[in-house]
């Protein structure tokens, strides 16, 4: 995964602590799960707002990567650079509740 924001914050955490001592929450399917940040330290988006047309273009670089989803006749897109700071968007598209994760 492009674990950019989470990894930047976690690298700061690990630099301060010993890299071999991250807190282990448990072992799942043979691999450890590490507890590194408090819940919601990276804030998922819960009430997304949208723009379209020229307002959308104005906030984007043409090469900017996006994640897009179509349900029925509705298409929503999320900038991956923006998602780096939130990791998850809780959204509803075409009447369907979905979570976009990055």
């Amino acid at each position, binding site marked *: *995964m492009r674990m950019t924001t989470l990894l930047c914050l976690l690298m700061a955490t690990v630099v301060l602590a010993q890299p071999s001592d991250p807190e282990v929450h448990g072992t799942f399917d043979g691999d450890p799960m590490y507890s590194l940040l408090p819940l919601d*330290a990276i804030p998922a988006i819960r009430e997304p707002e949208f723009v379209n047309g020229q307002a959308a273009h104005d906030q984007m670089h043409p090469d900017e990567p996006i994640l*897009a989803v179509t349900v029925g006749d509705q298409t929503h897109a999320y900038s991956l650079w923006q998602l780096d700071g939130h990791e998850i968007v809780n959204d509803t598209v075409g009447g369907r509740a979905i979570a976009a994760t990055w």
Partner: protein
Amino acid sequence: MYARQVGDRTLTFLVSGKLWRNSLIMQDLETGTLWSHVTGEALEGELAGTRLEVVPGVQADWGTWSAAHPSTRLLAKSEPVSASRYQQYFDDPEKAGLFRGNWLTGRLPGKTLVHGVHAAGVAVAVTAERLAGGESLDVLLGDRTITMQKQADGGVIAWHEADDGSRHQVDVLEVFWFAWSGFHPYTTVVD
């Protein structure tokens, strides 16, 4: 991406701050269950063992996508964001995940971008480079033929054709090889 509806409930997912196989673990607000965002499976909590329904999404660049889909609604930015903060991580072949894991198999450089499909214990990863030209590629996923193709709008989609000729879209994850192989160490690689 995933459907947030599980049974009668609509879940709200937060970033738990926990990491498993170098990938983020989600926690839902309603039950506190922990979920892998790579597999969609609940690992711990009231809903442990549940698997979220996949809703196929597509990755593309804004310019190509918006020209093909002008009615797209775009998540609003409250402040400008730029690539520069993360470009170094993205470009650096040495920086791959926080904890070294199973991907050191040498089959592909860790930071190779792949498009991965998986089902019922089998997995196939196709390098982004292999699909860059826009030609369709058939791969065998278990006993099923999956066709993958980069679209004119910039997104890579995958589908399988049923006996009646109808196409069923399959979710494709665009990820670094180091992350994909951590979850699917026996994946077939197409490059």
